[in-house]
C-alpha cells in the first residue's frame, strides 16, 4: 500500500514502514519551546531525571510571548530559560528576535522531510516547508530533550485540493478562514492535511506559512505543502546543501478528499469567539472597531506589512481607533524599515511593538477594554484571548484589517483595489 507524506516521514524517522493508526517511536530533528511553555519543560526535564540534553544543536528556546517581560513573575521565568539555555549550550532567541514560527524557519533549522516538535500549538506552520511539524505540551518536549525521541500515532490524511486564481484583495488568510469555516474547529481532528491544486502554484511562501499555521484551528496534527520551486527559492536563502522533497505515493490512502475552486472567494472574517464562525466580510461590514492589530505568526511577515502599507501609505487611520503593528521577526522589522513600509505604517497612525507575539496572547502590548472590538490578523479569537473576556476579537487578512483601520469599522478591502 502506498504512503501519504506523513506516513513517509514518520517511517523514515522510526526505521520501519508505518501507516495510519500505527504507533511509531521517532527520532526528532529539531525541538523548541517558548516562554509560555519552556519553564514547565525545564521543571519536567529535571523531574524525569534529565541532566544533559540529547543534542544541544537540535534544540532552541524562544522568548516571544511576553517579550520584553511585563512583570516580575514573567521575568523570573525568562531568567530560568536563559540560565538553562546557557548551561546546556542550546540556542536562545531572546527578546526582540521575534515569533518562534518566523525566527526558526529563518534560522535555517527546517528542511523538507524533517520531523520537528515544538511546545507551541502553531508549530504546524513549518508544514509549509514540506516538513512534519506539530505542537506538543511541555512534558513531552522535556522527554524529547532527554531522549531525542517521541511517540506518534500515525494520523490519517485529508487531501485538500484548491483550484483557481485568488481574486484581487483576497489572500492566503481568506483561504484558510474559508476552509476552517467549512470543515469546522474539529473538522480535521488528529489528521494530517495535504494541500495541493493549481491555486498553490502561485502562492508565495508567506501565504503558505499562513495556511499551514492555522491547520491546528481545524484540529489537524500537521499540514503539508509540496516542495516546489517557490519552496526551494525561499530555502536557499536560509539553508545550505541539497534540498530533498517528500511526495505521497499515487496509491496513498486518504480518509477524506475536499476540493474547492476559489476563483470567486470573498474576503473572510471569523467572528467571536470561535475561529470556525466565518462569514464573508460583507456580512459584518460597518461594525465599528476600537483596535486593529497586524502581526503574529499568522500574518506578521514582510508581505503582510507590505500589503497593509500599500493601503495605508499617505493616509491616516480613523481617529477613534488604535492600530498596533508587531513585525514577526527582527529580520522582518529590518526589511520593513529598509523598504520604507514601517514609516508608512507609523505615519498613518500605527503603533509599533517589539517583534514577537504582540497583543495576541493577552499578556501585554494592547489588552482591549471592556466592550471593545478588535479586528486582528491573528489565528485565534477565543473569549478572553487578548486578556479581556469582555471584549470581542474578529479575525481577518492584513488587507481587510488595514482597510478597516482607515474606515474605523469592518470594511471590504475590495473597495480599495477597485
Amino acid at each position, binding site marked *: 500500500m502506498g504512503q501519504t507524506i506523513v506516513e513517509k516521514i514518520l517511517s523514515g524517522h522510526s526505521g520501519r514502514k508505518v501507516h495510519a493508526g500505527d504507533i511509531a517511536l521517532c527520532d526528532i530533528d529539531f525541538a523548541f519551546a517558548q516562554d509560555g*511553555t519552556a519553564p514547565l519543560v525545564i521543571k519536567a526535564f529535571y523531574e524525569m531525571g534529565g541532566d544533559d540534553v540529547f543534542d544541544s544543536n537540535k534544540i532552541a528556546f524562544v522568548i516571544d510571548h511576553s517579550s520584553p517581560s511585563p512583570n516580575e513573575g514573567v521575568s523570573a521565568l525568562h531568567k530560568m530559560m536563559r540560565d538553562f539555555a546557557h548551561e546546556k549550550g542550546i540556542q536562545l532567541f531572546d527578546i526582540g528576535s521575534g515569533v518562534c514560527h518566523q525566527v526558526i524557519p529563518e534560522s535555517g533549522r527546517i528542511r523538507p522531510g524533517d520531523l520537528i516538535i515544538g511546545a507551541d500549538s502553531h508549530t504546524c506552520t513549518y508544514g509549509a516547508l514540506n516538513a512534519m511539524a506539530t505542537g506538543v505540551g511541555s*512534558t513531552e518536549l522535556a522527554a524529547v530533550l532527554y531522549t531525542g525521541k517521541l511517540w506518534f500515532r500515525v494520523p490519517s490524511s485529508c487531501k485538500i485540493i484548491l483550484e483557481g486564481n485568488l481574486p484581487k484583495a483576497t489572500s492566503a488568510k481568506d483561504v484558510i478562514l474559508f476552509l476552517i469555516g467549512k470543515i469546522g474547529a474539529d473538522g480535521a*481532528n488528529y489528521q494530517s492535511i495535504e494541500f495541493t491544486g493549481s491555486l498553490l502554484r502561485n502562492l508565495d511562501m508567506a501565504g503558505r506559512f499562513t495556511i499551514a499555521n492555522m491547520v*491546528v484551528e481545524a484540529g489537524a496534527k500537521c499540514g503539508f505543502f509540496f516542495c516546489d520551486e517557490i519552496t526551494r527559492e525561499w530555502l536557499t536563502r536560509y539553508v545550505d546543501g541539497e534540498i530533498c522533497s517528500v511526495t505521497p505515493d499515487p496509491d496513498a490512502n486518504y480518509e477524506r478528499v475536499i476540493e474547492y475552486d476559489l476563483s470567486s472567494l470573498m474576503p473572510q472574517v471569523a467572528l467571536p469567539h*470561535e475561529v470556525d464562525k466565518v462569514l464573508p466580510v460583507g456580512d459584518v461590514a460597518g461594525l465599528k472597531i476600537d483596535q486593529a492589530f497586524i502581526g503574529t505568526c499568522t500574518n506578521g511577515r514582510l508581505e503582510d506589512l507590505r500589503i497593509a502599507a500599500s493601503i495605508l501609505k499617505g493616509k491616516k487611520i480613523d481617529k477613534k481607533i488604535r492600530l498596533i503593528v508587531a513585525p514577526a521577526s527582527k529580520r522582518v522589522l529590518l526589511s520593513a524599515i529598509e523598504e520604507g513600509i514601517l514609516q508608512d505604517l507609523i505615519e498613518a497612525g500605527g503603533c509599533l511593538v517589539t517583534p514577537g507575539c504582540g497583543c495576541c496572547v493577552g499578556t501585554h502590548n494592547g489588552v482591549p477594554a471592556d466592550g471593545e472590538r478588535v479586528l486582528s490578523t491573528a489565528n485565534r479569537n*477565543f473569549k478572553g484571548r487578548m486578556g479581556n473576556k469582555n471584549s470581542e476579537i474578529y479575525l481577518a487578512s492584513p488587507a481587510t484589517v488595514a482597510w478597516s483601520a482607515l474606515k474605523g469599522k469592518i470594511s471590504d478591502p475590495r473597495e480599495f483595489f477597485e
Partner: protein
Amino acid sequence: MKLVGKAHRFGDDINTDLIISGKYKFKTLDMEELSKHLLEDLDPDFFKKIKKGDFIVAGKNFGCGSSREQAPLVIKYAHISAVLASSFARIFYRNAINVGLPLVECDTSKIDEGDNLVVDLEGGKVIDQTKQEEIDITPLPSFMIEILSAGGLVGYIKENRGWRI
C-alpha cells in the same frame, strides 16, 4: 479504580484559553494558584463549586487551542478527578495523560449538571446514578494507560529511563 463525583456541565469546543487564561499562565508555575482561575471566564465561581473528585463533562472538541500544559494541570490541581467529553482536541488529549489526568471519551449528551457519576476506567463504563444509565467508554490505547498508571510521563520516563515501546 472507580472515580465518584458530581458532573459540572460545559458545552462544545471548550478551548485552552477558557480553561486557563494567558493573562495568568505566563506569570507563574504555581498550579495551586492558577487553578483558582479554572474556567473563570465561563463561570467566575467555578473553582469554589468543585468538590474533590468531581467531573468536568463537556461536548465535542474539549481542550482545543494552544499546547499549554497548564490547561490539564489546573484541572488536576482543582481536584477534578476526570474530564468526560464526546471528543478531545489532540494536544490536550496527550497533555492530560502526560500529567496524569484521566480523560473519558464517551457519549455525554444525556449527562446533566449535578448528576452523580461513577467512572469505572478499567470496566470501561460511566454510571450515571441520577439517571440510572450506563454509558460505554472509548478505551484508551494500552500504551497511554501505562503512562497514566505511572502518574504521567515524568514518572514513566523516570521508571523506564526513556521509552519502552
